[in-house]
């Protein structure tokens, strides 16, 4: 279950690409970075079936007749990636039992936050609760990007989206984010984790490998910046991720067999406005007179960070 080999960045980068180029995701798409690197965590030679909820990724990575997947791939709809892959995994058990297939397969499915936090939550919950040996990866870009930046339950508070526009009497999305990782942990599955793109992405690779090679269901939540929806220059993706982590807006942690583990604690926690100011979707927060909104945002980040630390220290 544990990755036995030590982390070897160069070896991972030398692995054959499992997400082929030629997909039609936006230039600079964070979701694609998440998918590519999760798939890199598969051991070379291991077979996999990749699932996918409808979303940006799906319409761009399997646009007939072009598939970007080097493995078998299935998409069926928006809200059912969990159920669809659970059917594939069960077929694997059935066919293996009958001796019809010999190879070992891994099962990984991807969904955006719309397909995961919202419309696909029931299907995901069912698949996790039933204990299928699969990994559900949410590339969380915090809105329904495929349909044009509508709010989701993963959208951060005060974000300006096309269904929570900041206006003369609105400050953007009134609610704060749903804590999906906690919901997944509450399923008491063997492995749940949250990460994003930091440094050499060791955190992401280690978690993806654990998720893939842990027997039973696993859930990975990966913050995947969307330059279009968040309104920043794609080239700044590296900075945005770093700031999300250093401000404790996006903590990196995992829940292993019920034990909460904080994987990174900033030496000096940065104010959340450092993260917010980089993104056009929070522009209205920086208007004079709106300082209190940033304070509210900061309070929410602080509260959640303390709560997480308590869970991890318990």
């Amino acid at each position: 279950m544990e990755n036995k080999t030590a982390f070897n960045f160069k070896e991972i980068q030398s692995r054959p690409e499992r997400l082929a180029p030629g997909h039609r995701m936006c230039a600079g798409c964070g979701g694609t970075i998440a998918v590519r690197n999760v798939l890199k965590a598969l051991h070379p030679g291991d077979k996999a079936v990749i699932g996918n909820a409808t979303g940006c990724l799906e319409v761009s990575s399997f646009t007939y007749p072009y598939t970007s997947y080097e493995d078998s791939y299935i998409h069926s709809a928006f809200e059912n990636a969990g159920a669809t892959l659970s059917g594939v995994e069960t077929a694997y058990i059935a066919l293996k039992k009958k001796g019809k297939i010999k190879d070992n397969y891994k099962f990984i499915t991807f969904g955006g936050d719309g397909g995961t936090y919202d419309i696909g939550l029931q299907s995901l919950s069912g698949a996790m609760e039933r204990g299928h040996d699969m990994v559900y990866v949410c590339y969380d870009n915090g809105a329904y990007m495929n349909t044009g930046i509508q709010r989701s339950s993963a959208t951060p508070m005060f974000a300006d989206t096309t269904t929570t526009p900041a206006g003369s009497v609105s400050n953007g999305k009134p609610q704060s984010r749903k804590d999906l990782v906690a919901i997944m942990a509450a399923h008491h599955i063997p492995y749940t984790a949250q990460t994003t793109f930091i440094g050499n992405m060791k955190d992401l690779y280690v978690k993806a490998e654990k998720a893939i090679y842990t027997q039973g269901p696993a859930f990975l939540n990966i913050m995947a910046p969307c330059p279009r929806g968040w309104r920043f220059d794609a080239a700044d993706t590296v900075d945005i991720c770093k700031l999300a982590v250093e401000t404790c807006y996006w903590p990196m942690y995992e829940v292993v067999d019920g034990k909460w583990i904080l994987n990174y604690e900033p030496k000096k926690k940065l104010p959340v406005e450092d993260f917010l100011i980089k993104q056009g979707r929070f522009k209205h927060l920086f208007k004079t007179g709106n300082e209190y909104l940033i304070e509210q945002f900061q309070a929410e980040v602080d509260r959640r960070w303390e709560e997480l630390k308590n869970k991890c220290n318990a």
Partner: protein
Amino acid sequence: MAIKERMSGNEAVAFAIKQVNPDVMPAFPITPSTELPQFVSNYVANGKIDTEFIPVESEHSSMSAAMGASAAGARALTATSSCGLALMWEMLYVAASSRLPIALALVNRGLTGPLNINCEHSDSMGARDSGWLQVYAENNQEAYDNFIMAYRVAEHKDVRLPIMTCMDGFITSHAVENITLIEDDLVKKFVGEYEPEHYLLNEEEPMAVGPYAVSNYCMEAKRAQAQGMMNAKQVFLDVAKEFEQISGRKYGLFEEYKLDDAEYAVVGIGSAMGTAKDAIDALRAKGIKAGLLKVRVFRPFPGEEMAAALAGCKAIAIMDRCESYSGNGGPLGAELTSALYRAKSKAEIINVVYGLSGRDVKVEDFENLYGELADIAVNGVKDTQYRYLGLRE
């Protein structure tokens, strides 16, 4: 040889499932199909079946998981009724367009509004344009036989479409009646192993299912899918012919009962057609030339063939156990009337909505209906061609 038994429709279909021994069955309980997943779970619990049962959290997930399993290379099935089918709706289309030969044992029950658990065909009729093959049963025997033939049609290389085998909720699913079963080994041989050409778990060849397709591909894809449906007509007949050899029971796209010389015909679907047969016998004894056309295969729709079989009739009542809210009759009424028109039929036609939400239909109801047809044949359709039977006015 054949095994004489008595079983309810649900027991019979569960028994067929056991004999066919499919690979994966995701299902969610809903009255009156609930017994099907229960029976299969029991078979699984006692090692009588190799099927992997997935206790999914909704019907949407049953169809999604069935799709995943089917695409992966497994023989998959599910069972449902009414609102359960409605919750699958979106996925019905996706399963069909992905050309996945899933079987769905449907126990017909009305769609909610108001909530009711009894027999009606509004569930499957609503799904009639989803791209699924649809075959209907009059009784437990036909429900059993239809399920045994199901995969042979669905998996046929010229078809490759999912199939819905339908029986009437409660009336068929829960009534114990005589049935003749086929020996396990004969069924096994008849159905055969599922050897898909392409599947996700093919170690030699990766596969991708469910693309986004631009308009320049979509219309062509839909036309190709329609061809599978058209091809299914002949495949249904071929499979039925082979089935006759192991069962001695003959099936066509529809059944004709005393229709050869009939002047007045009823056309309908399901258990009430058995009741109609009793009425026909009584009328025939009085010299009235009554006949019946019972639809078995509704998708593909054998319009031309039915129109030909009805060519000699003076008056026809097309029965719909379903209100389509078109303000113009039910689905069978609409489709068959159009087929009769194309066949230049001179018959007087009425469309009768009956049996909604389990409203009982009796032998005398049919006797009265034939009486009305006799009148219409002479005097023409007086009131409206679209009417209700057994309704309190």
